[in-house]
């Protein structure tokens, strides 16, 4: 099952992949699209990716989580394309016999995903202008993006 999808993330389906009677605790994280800190009216937000690497990197991150928390079962999705404000761009579900492991595995995957997934976000404003955002909410400038120069 690919990690990337273009439709809304179905939380119930994600949970069903990991919840089981022998795993008593399930932690879910949803990252929700929000406005940048200095925006005018945003009409939509577009997520794009390096699709082959997105799948490869997500697979590695989930494998790392399974290696660290062997009893945990972890799954995740990233939405691409237009994502309306307030809808989830990423969802991670981790179930484990002990709730601490479920929380820790879920947290591990989101922290690594933020650092490593080749995904980009562009805000389309009401006047038609576009703004590329980095993960800290900053604007990605011309050819010398913050952190990239």
């Amino acid at each position, binding site marked *: 099952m690919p990690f990337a999808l273009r439709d809304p993330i179905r939380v119930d389906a994600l949970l069903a992949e990991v919840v089981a009677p022998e795993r008593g605790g399930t932690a879910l994280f949803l990252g929700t699209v929000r406005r940048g800190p200095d925006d005018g009216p945003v009409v939509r937000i577009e997520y794009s990716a*390096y699709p082959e690497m997105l799948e490869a990197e997500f697979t590695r991150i989930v494998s790392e989580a399974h290696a660290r928390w062997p009893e945990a079962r972890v799954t995740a999705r990233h939405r691409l394309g237009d994502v309306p404000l307030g809808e989830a761009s*990423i969802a991670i579900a981790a179930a484990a016999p002990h709730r601490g492991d479920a929380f820790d595995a879920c947290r591990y995957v989101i922290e690594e995903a933020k650092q490593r997934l080749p995904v980009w*976000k562009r805000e389309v404003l009401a006047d038609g202008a576009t703004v590329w955002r*980095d*993960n800290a909410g900053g604007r*990605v400038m011309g050819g010398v993006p913050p952190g990239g120069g």
Partner: protein
Amino acid sequence: MAALRVRCRLFARYAEVVGREEVVLDLPADAVVADAIALLRRQVPRGDVLPERPLVAVNLAHVLHTERLRDGDELALLPPLAGG
């Protein structure tokens, strides 16, 4: 004569800046990622607007700029990430 050929992919803001999503680079046999970036910035119109040390991946994995390249590798320049 070039000893290795690398497919270089550009994404998001970087593709927008240079107006291309893909560039083929011919490099000497001992080239590392930093050499490929330097060549790309000279070879492509507006390439000098790209950062000198962008985040990079080779064959779908993050690598350092000191990583050796091999013939047929896929190099990618990754603008600041915004996933999650």
